[in-house]
């Protein structure tokens, strides 16, 4: 069957202190050797099999230590997939597993498709025949979910940027292709100079995307969190406090405009994506700004709500609206302004939101912030709130594809610079185009030929 080596995160993110990255295939041990520095052994291949080795994952490119791990390798055929398997046990949460998976992919593995370990296990005879249907279910169900997530994630600016890049590549391809297939036409086909300029532009753009959206240390994903509260209740102070104390990691994709922006913040190792409206700090009222319907839609897509109430005044109609919205999702309630005279107490909220943790805070004195952060952490590690696994998987996949596209365009550029023949340049360009297409889910078809006939007046 497929001889390529696959890798994936084997554990659900966030639910445990340990995360596992699994690699299966012929090159599993070789990849392990490249990225693992042991305490007792220098190479993974020196280890006994089925023996847990202590050491570090090190990015061979930068020499950076990524995480302290336990690593084990199991020799084929006595493994789950019947292939060589390497498993890396690292710190749980997201950052570590994700970074390790990225490095594994950079060093020769391919991202496993949905259900692929199980598929291999079955095709290689490891799983009993009676399980065949279950395997099929797994493949089709997982694919459906990740497909949806993938599309959701790509909605909007990012997908647009990749489409634009892909079109650029297509244009280059069409130029080359048209000049090859219709050599006698007096059309203006691309020169090496033009190919070089276009190629450099594409490379630059891909690099920018990698540096921002998919940078290794930056999390694009996180608990999607919405802060709700009536005007002047202290939402902006909360945001500012959290952002100040926990360095804001990323803002947004450069060069795009949306009326909702996202703040990424890492609280006690838990990535939070705080969904913010462009004006939240000015008008201080998300509902007023975007309307109840859109607020609801936003809440639907979120993982967590932080609802803020003013302890120094009675609950208003607006507050009741917010309580209702908060009841749809996992939420944390902050009773703010406790440094002033309290008019309401936690019992008043508890009546409406019985399962919600309520914290007394003061943004002025900083009371309760520590409790809020610990609450978040607890909820995350007990699995009460979680990030959708597929979001992470897809981000790693997209980054991997983008890295490949970058390599392709670099190869094409070096072919252009040494003025190699068009038939060779085309090979790398086509790969670049396909890799970008896999991110946006567009597949190859007649696109190229359509483009040729659309742009050039050719034919006999």
């Amino acid at each position, binding site marked *: *069957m*497929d001889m390529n080596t696959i890798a994936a995160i084997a554990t659900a993110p966030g639910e445990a202190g340990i995360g596992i990255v699994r690699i299966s295939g012929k090159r599993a041990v070789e990849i392990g050797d490249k990225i693992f520095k042991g305490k007792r052994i220098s190479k993974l291949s020196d280890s006994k099999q089925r023996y847990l080795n202590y050491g570090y994952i090190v990015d061979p490119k930068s020499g950076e230590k990524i995480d302290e791990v336990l690593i084990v390798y199991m020799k084929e055929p006595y493994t789950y997939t019947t292939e060589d398997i390497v498993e890396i046990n690292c710190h749980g949460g997201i950052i570590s597993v994700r970074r390790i998976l990225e490095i594994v992919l950079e060093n020769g593995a391919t991202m496993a*498709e*949905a*259900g*692929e370990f199980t*598929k291999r296990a*079955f*095709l290689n*005879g490891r799983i009993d*025949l009676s399980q*065949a*249907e279950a*395997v*099929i*279910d797994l*493949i*089709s169900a997982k*694919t459906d979910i990740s497909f949806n997530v993938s599309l959701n994630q790509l909605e909007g600016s990012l997908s647009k940027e990749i489409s634009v890049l892909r079109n650029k590549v297509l244009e280059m391809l069409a130029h080359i*292709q048209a*000049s*090859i*297939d*219709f*050599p*006698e*036409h*007096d059309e203006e086909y691309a020169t090496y100079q033009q190919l070089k300029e276009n190629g450099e532009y594409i490379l630059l753009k891909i690099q920018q995307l990698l540096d921002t959206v998919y940078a290794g240390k930056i999390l694009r994903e996180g608990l999607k969190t919405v802060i709700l509260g009536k005007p002047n209740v202290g939402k902006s102070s909360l945001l500012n406090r959290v952002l100040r104390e926990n360095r804001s990691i990323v803002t947004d994709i450069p060069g795009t405009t949306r009326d909702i922006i996202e703040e990424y913040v890492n609280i006690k190792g838990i990535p939070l994506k705080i969904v913010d409206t462009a004006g939240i700090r000015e008008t201080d009222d998300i509902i007023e700004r975007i309307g109840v319907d859109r607020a609801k839609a936003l809440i639907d897509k979120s993982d967590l709500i932080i609802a803020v109430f003013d302890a120094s005044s009675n609950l208003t109609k607006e507050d009741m609206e917010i309580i209702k919205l908060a009841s749809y999702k996992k939420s944390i309630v902050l009773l703010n302004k406790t440094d002033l005279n309290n008019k309401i107490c936690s019992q008043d909220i508890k009546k409406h939101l019985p399962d919600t943790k309520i914290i007394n805070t003061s943004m002025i004195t900083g009371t309760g912030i520590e409790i809020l952060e610990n609450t978040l952490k607890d909820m995350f590690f007990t699995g009460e709130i979680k990030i959708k696994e597929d979001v992470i998987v897809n981000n790693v996949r997209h980054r991997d594809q983008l890295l490949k596209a970058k390599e392709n365009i670099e190869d094409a550029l070096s072919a252009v610079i*040494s003025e*190699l*023949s*068009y*038939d*060779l340049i085309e*090979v790398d360009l086509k790969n670049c185009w396909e890799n970008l297409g896999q991110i946006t889910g567009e597949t190859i*078809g007649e696109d*190229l*030929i359509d483009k*040729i*006939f659309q742009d050039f*007046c*050719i*034919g*006999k």
Partner: protein
Amino acid sequence: MKGSQIYDAGNFDVIVVGAGHSGCEAALASARMGMNSLILTMSLDSVALMPCNPAIGGTGKGHLVREIDALGGEMGKNIDKTFIQSRMLNTSKGPAVHSLRAQADKNKYSYSMKEILESEKNVTLKQGEVTGFLVKERKVTGIITRTGARFNAKTVILCTGTYLRGKIYIGEVNYWGGPNGLSPAMYLTEHLEEYGIKVRRFKTGTPARIHMDSINFSKMDIQPGDKDIVPFSFMNENLTKDQVPCYLTYTNLETHKIIMNNLSRSPMYTGHMESTGPRYCPSIEDKVVRFSDKNRHQIFVEPEGLDTKEMYVQGMSTTLPSEVQIKMLRTVEGLENVEIMREAYAIEYDCIDPTTLKRSLEHKEIEGLFFAGQVNGSSGYEEAAAQGIIAGINASLKLQNKEPLILDRSQAYIGVLIDDLVTKGTNEPYRMMTSRCEYRLTLRQDNADLRLTEIGHSVGLAAKKRYEKMITKREGIEKELERLSNVKITPTDEVNSYLKELGSSPMKKPTSLYELIKRPELSYDNLHTIDKDRDNLLKDVKIQVEIQIKYEGYIDKQMKQIEQFKKLEGKKLSKKLDYSIIKGLRLEARQKLDKMKPESVGQASRISGVSPSDINVLLVYLEQQRRLKSRGEKDD
């Protein structure tokens, strides 16, 4: 149809209907494989007729001709015999896309092919219009001609070209007719439909032919042929011939004005022709309308042969009325006094949906009935011939109870052509282009013999002489590659100064010739000074050696992709498979697979609407079935 009385006219192994480019290859292939073959044509004066452009080959198409030749076909040999100009295109763009094209002497091409058919031992060539075919229990048993002859055979290959209910359009005038003033075939379509074979209408067009003496060539650019002629056939070496030039001129704004003013008289624009035409062969109306910012379009004036003064006006295909045609041509430089001998016309014809065929080109529902050429929705002489030879081979293999010959996408352009047609179908007359081919660095026109002659020989088509010639070439290449990696050149002053002369950096340590050839500025030929022991090798061998060394990295990468590709191609799917019971396939995939009945998982993956996860589901299902079966066998 009312016809004459049916009489028994004889028994054959293979009957080929139509003697165009696909019919000729089909009949010759089956005859050479030992099958008693009948080939029928509407007119014996139109065997291997070239009713459109007077050229064979070109980008992608040149590859097809070389492949047909490598398998043991006739097209390459026949054009080598009858060409009047030859050119290798794309020589600056890399060996993978070098494409050979030759201007043909049309009449000689046709007569010469007719003579070959007449002389071939197992071929019977007859004039006659086929009006029906006979089917018993979904198996073909023979055909009937308009004059009542019944010929019996277990296999029939339909190569009807553009003849089926052909209709000619010139301006406001239209009438039933075949190409080049010939008669259409008006009856066979009905018969196809009776057997549930649906037809659709495609169209194509051809420009006017003009009289040589009415052209002022001094106002045009002359386009000569190549000095060194590369033959199409691997059996030919060192062809020399006096060549005839082509000429280049341009349309201008005056031409475009006349066209725009008369658009309403072009049936394509008035909606009188609704059929689909090829995009790569746009009419001049189309070009002027769609690319209105262009002030001129190229026109190539090409000779149609040595014994005729007719010349072909490439670039000016049109459905404008006769009167407008002459006006518009006379605006072109060099054509001020031009006389039209034949008007430009469009032809509309019936063709079938090729997805109803297997990759062997046999119909999925009617056993023994094969289709090849333009009737399958392709266009071009070369595309037709390529299908013809495969249909001829597979009809013969079927009669010999052997597995059909399927060339896949990694083996040949022919494989790409047929797979595209039968797997993806086509919405316009399909033309081969190098961009359709995924593995074109390995599928070059220069190595078609190395790729295919062994296959042609093993099915009994490529003759022994051809096979041995290829083996000698292959061994020569292997030996030389080995020698080049073994011979190490020592970096003496003499050697380094020679390298410097060639613009290459000096060597520091002994280096093999193989490594040296890899340097972009060096070549096999220019290293002869420091490679004194080399034998004088055949040109073909030198070319292969150089390409294999220079492009090794790219070729290796492609070979890996081909390996991946072959894995899915190797997973066969039974045509009895009921996709509706496979849980986990998406609805669209289920329907498409049920309709198409692909032959392998690889082919299934190329059907539009079948996703990668559907393919995974299929793989698991196949493994489940395989294990169930082997369990069942154990139980027995």
